[in-house]
């Protein structure tokens, strides 16, 4: 009985090893964070390519560089600028989901030490299958539009 239980466990472990986890099927590129004066919350932006054939869900984020992180989506619909807090972000299969100013962003709050232009910070995106995707962000000046301009 006990042997059988372990055999099942071993089988399960093999199964997970055979299939790439969610973190392995997502490529993160062009990550950047806007540096604002003082300790104001900053927006983080990135392009996420889901190379798998199923939707990958981001369910949270944590960073050693910030006290709080959360996902937001801004909109200026109807002439009002507002932000919506998101518990989850879906990355559709075989597609690139872009986090960019005016839309999806990671809100990074309470920097543990001042982040300066040119610094790199890492934010760990937690995915629904329990895997973790570390995302690298380059710190850019307040008046930047993207990673390069």
């Amino acid at each position, binding site marked *: 009985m006990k042997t059988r239980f372990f055999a099942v466990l071993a089988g399960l472990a093999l199964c997970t090893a055979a299939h790439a986890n969610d973190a392995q099927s997502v490529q993160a590129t062009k990550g950047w964070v806007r540096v604002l004066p*003082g300790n*104001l*919350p*900053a927006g983080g932006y990135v392009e996420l390519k889901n190379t798998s054939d199923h939707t990958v869900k981001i369910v949270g984020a944590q960073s050693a560089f910030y006290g*709080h992180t959360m996902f937001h989506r801004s909109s200026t619909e109807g002439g009002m*600028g507002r*932000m919506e807090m998101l518990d989850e972000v879906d990355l559709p299969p075989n597609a690139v989901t872009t986090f960019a100013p005016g839309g999806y962003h990671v809100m990074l709050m309470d920097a543990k030490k001042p982040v300066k232009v040119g610094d790199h910070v890492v934010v760990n995106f937690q995915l629904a299958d329990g895997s973790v995707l570390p995302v690298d962000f380059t710190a850019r000046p*307040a008046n930047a539009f993207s990673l390069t301009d």
Partner: protein
Amino acid sequence: MKLSRIGLMALLTLVLALAGCQREPQPAWRLTDVGGHLPDLDFRLTNDEGKPVTGADYRGKVVLMYFGYTHCPDVCPLTLTQLHVVLQRLGPLADDTRILFVTVDPKRDTPEIMHAYVNAFDKHAVGLVGSDSDTEALAKRYRSAFTREPDRGNGAYDVSHSSAIYIFDRDGKARLLATPSAAQDDIVHDLHLLIGLGAKS
């Protein structure tokens, strides 16, 4: 016959002359023309150096007024960056303009914080702070709106606010309205026209 023809000519000339008087030729704006529909630039607020200022202090400059707040991590920086790039494209003419960034969050936005914030975007930007009632009165004057959203639990909160950019000529007259998604080319085009109008201070 001959007389009536002369009469007709005279009448035509008069009509043309009157049509000419009625309206000055209007520049071909690309943004939304709000001339005559919104009140002149007028307020009593504190600038980011802690000095009291009024709308009259900005006469002679083309003014771009925008309501926002510094804890706004996305839309406000995007709009101010957009305006920074527009002013850069104006070159030395940018000195004839001012960006007035009015906070809708006077509880958290002190003149010092506003000073550091606006200067991170553009040297022609001025941060303006008022009491709750002064800020509300100014927003109302321009049919702008803002709402403090519920606390997120850690004392942090967002403020939803009108995203329009109000553009005034050198005489403080409201002339144009732009949205944050307006094409930079269109804003640059119209600012060139506005800078060419009216007297420099």
